[in-house]
C-alpha cells in the first residue's frame, strides 16, 4: 500500500510539473485549456487516492492528517478554476486583451503554480517549504502582470517587492529554527525535517524559537495578506486575470497560513517558548477591523472581494490564535469554507466583469434582471461570504464567535464588531449591483459555463446544513493536533 501512496504523492508533483512543460511547448489555446483542465483533474484524482493509501514520510515529503485535506482542497479548487479559466480565457482572447502567445505562458504558469502549492503542502522540510512558497510567489507575480497594462505592472511590482520581503523574513526565521534545533538534533537534514522537529521541539532553545516565530509570522503573514502587510493583496487581485484572483484568494493565502500553523505547532510543543496565540490574535483582529473600516470605500468589484479575503484570513488567524479544540475546529472549517466561497465569488465576478466590460461597482447595476443566473449566483456567494445562514461560512464564523465568547468576552466583542461592519458593507454593495436599476445599455449575454460557481456554492450550502460525520471526526482530530 505504501508504495502506492508514494506513487500518488510523487504524481501530485510530477503531473503539474510535466503539464507545465508540455503546455510551454504546445501552441493553440483550445488544446492548452483542455490539457490544463485534464492535468488538474488528474492531480485531483491523485490527491483523492491519498486517503486510501497514505505514503510514509521521507526526509522531504510527507502526508499527514493536517495537510491531506488541504491537498485535496487545493487540487479541487485548482480543477474547478481551470474549468472557469477555460471559458474566461476564451472571452479575453475575443476581446483582444490577451494574445495566444500569452495564453501559452498563462497555462504553463497555471500548472507550475499548482506544482508549487502542492510542493509547499507536501513538504516535510522547512527549507523545501520555503522554496515552494517562493516559487509560488514568483509565478503569481508573473501572472498578476499578465495584462501588461500600467496598472497590472504596478500591481505586480508592488506584490513582488512586498512578497520578496516577506519571503526574506521567512527565510531568516527558517534559519533560526534550524539553529534552535541544531544543539538538540545535530547537524544535517533531520534538523530541518518537520516531523523530526516536532518530536524534539521540547528540547529546543526557547529564546531562538521565539525570535524565529516572529520572523516566520511576519514573513508568511505577508503572504497570507495580514494587516499591516497586506498592501500587495488588493492590487494583485484586482489587476491580474480573474482565475488567478480565485486561486490567490482561495488557495495561496491558505498555503501561507498553513506554513504559519506548522510553526505554531512547533511553538506549542515547546513548553518554555512564547505562546504564539496573542500575536496571532492581534494580527487577526487588526486585519478584521481594518477591513471592516476600509471596505466601504472600495469602488472596484475585485478589490472589494480582495479586501474581504484579508478579513477572512484575519478571522482564521484569530481563531487559531485563540486555540483550543473548538476554535481550531472553527479555523479549519473556515479555511475550507472561505476557499470554496471566495473562489465561487471570483468565478461570478470574472463573468460579470466580462459581460459588463467593467470592474467598477458603480456601473454594475441590476444584475439579477440582466443576467439572472450570474446575478443570483453573486447574491448567493455574497450572502455566504458575509456569514449568513444557511451557508457553511455561517457555521464556522458562529463557532469562532461563540468559542471566543466563552474564553475572552472582550475580544469577542471586537470580533463581532468587525464581522458586522464587513457584513453590512458587503450587503450594501450587493444591493446596487444585484437589484439596482439596469443602466439600459445593450445586454451582453453570458455565454460561458457557470457550472464551477454552482458546484462550489452547492458544497458550501451542503456544509452549512450538514457536515458529513467522517469530516467532523477528522476536523476534531486535527484541531486537537494543533493545540
Amino acid at each position, binding site marked *: 500500500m505504501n508504495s502506492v501512496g508514494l506513487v500518488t504523492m510523487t504524481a501530485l508533483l510530477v503531473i503539474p510539473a510535466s503539464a507545465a512543460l508540455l503546455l510551454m511547448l504546445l501552441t493553440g489555446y483550445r488544446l492548452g485549456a483542455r490539457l490544463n483542465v485534464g492535468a488538474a483533474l488528474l492531480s485531483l484524482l491523485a490527491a483523492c487516492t491519498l486517503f486510501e493509501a497514505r505514503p510514509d514520510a521521507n526526509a522531504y515529503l510527507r502526508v499527514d492528517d493536517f495537510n491531506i485535506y488541504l491537498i485535496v482542497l487545493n487540487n479541487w479548487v485548482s480543477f474547478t478554476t481551470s474549468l472557469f479559466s477555460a471559458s474566461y480565457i476564451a472571452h479575453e482572447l475575443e476581446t483582444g486583451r490577451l494574445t495566444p502567445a500569452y495564453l501559452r505562458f498563462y497555462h504553463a504558469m497555471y500548472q507550475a503554480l499548482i506544482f508549487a502549492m502542492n510542493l509547499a503542502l507536501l513538504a516535510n522540510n522547512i527549507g523545501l517549504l520555503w*522554496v515552494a512558497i517562493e*516559487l509560488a510567489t*514568483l509565478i503569481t507575480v508573473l501572472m498578476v502582470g499578465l495584462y501588461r497594462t500600467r496598472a497590472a505592472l504596478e500591481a505586480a511590482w508592488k506584490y513582488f517587492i512586498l512578497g520578496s*520581503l516577506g519571503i526574506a523574513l521567512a527565510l531568516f526565521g527558517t534559519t533560526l529554527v534550524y539553529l534552535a534545533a541544531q544543539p538538540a538534533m545535530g547537524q544535517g537534514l533531520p534538523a530541518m525535517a518537520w516531523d523530526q522537529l516536532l518530536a524534539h521541539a521540547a528540547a529546543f532553545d526557547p529564546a531562538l524559537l521565539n525570535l524565529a516565530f516572529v520572523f516566520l509570522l511576519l514573513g508568511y503573514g505577508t503572504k497570507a495578506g495580514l494587516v499591516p502587510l497586506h498592501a500587495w493583496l488588493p492590487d494583485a487581485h484586482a489587476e491580474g486575470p480573474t482565475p488567478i484572483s480565485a486561486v490567490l484568494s482561495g488557495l495561496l493565502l491558505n498555503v501561507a497560513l498553513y506554513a504559519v500553523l506548522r510553526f505554531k505547532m512547533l511553538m506549542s510543543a515547546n513548553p518554555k517558548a512564547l505562546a504564539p496565540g496573542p500575536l496571532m490574535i492581534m494580527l487577526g483582529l487588526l486585519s478584521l477591523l481594518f477591513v471592516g473600516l476600509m471596505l466601504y470605500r472600495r469602488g*472596484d468589484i475585485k478589490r472589494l472581494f480582495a479586501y474581504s479575503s484579508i478579513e477572512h484570513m484575519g478571522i482564521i488567524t484569530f481563531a487559531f490564535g485563540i486555540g483550543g479544540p473548538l476554535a481550531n475546529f472553527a479555523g479549519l472549517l473556515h479555511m475550507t469554507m472561505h476557499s470554496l466561497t471566495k473562489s465561487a465569488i471570483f468565478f461570478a465576478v470574472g463573468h460579470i466583469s466580462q459581460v459588463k466590460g467593467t470592474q467598477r461597482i458603480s456601473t454594475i447595476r441590476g444584475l439579477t434582471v440582466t443576467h439572472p443566473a450570474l446575478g443570483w449566483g453573486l447574491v448567493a456567494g455574497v450572502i455566504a461570504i458575509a456569514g449568513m445562514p444557511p451557508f457553511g461560512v455561517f457555521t464556522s464564523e458562529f463557532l469562532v464567535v461563540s468559542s471566543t465568547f466563552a474564553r475572552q468576552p472582550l475580544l469577542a466583542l471586537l470580533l463581532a464588531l468587525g464581522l458586522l461592519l464587513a457584513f453590512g458593507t458587503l450587503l450594501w454593495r450587493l444591493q446596487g449591483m444585484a437589484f439596482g436599476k439596469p443602466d439600459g445599455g445593450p445586454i451582453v449575454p453570458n455565454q460561458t459555463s457557470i457550472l464551477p460557481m454552482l458546484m462550489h456554492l452547492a458544497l458550501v450550502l451542503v456544509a452549512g446544513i450538514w457536515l458529513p460525520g467522517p469530516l467532523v471526526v477528522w476536523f476534531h482530530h486535527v484541531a486537537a493536533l494543533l493545540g
Partner: protein
Amino acid sequence: MHSLAFDIAHFLAGSMVVVSFLLLYQDRLYSLLNVFALHSLVLALAVGWQASTQNAHHLYVTAAIALIFKAIVIPTVLHRIVRSLGIHRTLDVVGGVGRDMLAGAALVALAILVMLPVTAGADALAREDLAFALAVILLGLLLMVTRQNAISLVIGFMSLENGLILAATGARGMPLVVEISVAFSVLIALIVIGVFLFRIRERFDSVDMQAMDTFREERRK
C-alpha cells in the same frame, strides 16, 4: 583565545556590515552599484571561508553564485540598464544621510542586543555571524524604506538577501543552503528583468517608486 579561522570569519562578516553602511550614503547610482558589487564580493569571500573551515564543499557553490552572479553579472546588467534608460541622476535621500547613518547605527545595536542574548547556547562563531547577518538584513531594510528610486530599492533588497545567505551559511551544517541560494538568485534575476521590462515597454515614465505610487485606486474612481 579564538583561532585564526574564527578571526577571519569574524572579520569578513563584520566587513559586510561596514559595506552595508557604505551603501547607505552613496548618492550616485553608479557608485551604489559598485559598492553593491563589493558587498557581494565580501559575501562570496565569507561564504568561501565558511566552506573551507566547515569543510562543507557544497557551500563553494553558494560562494561561486555570489561571486559570479551577484558581484559581476547583476551589477554589470544594472549598469547597462541605468545607461540605456538614461537615469544618470544623483539619488535623493529622504531625510538626509546623517539621519540614515544614525538609524543604521541604532539598527546594528538592536541586532546585537537581540541576537547575542538569545543565542547564548550556540557556538561563538554562529552567534556573531548571526548578529552581523541580522544587522545586514536590517540595514538592507533601511535602504529599502528610505530610497524611492527603483534601482536603490532593488539594491537594498539584494543587500538584505546577502545578509540572509550569510546567516544561512553561518548556521553550521544547514541543509539546502545551495538550493535556497539558487532559488533566491532566480528571484533576483526576475526583479532585475522586471525593472528592465517596466521601462522597456514604456509603460512608466520613470522607475521612480513615487511616480508609481500615485497610480492608486483613488485615481480610478
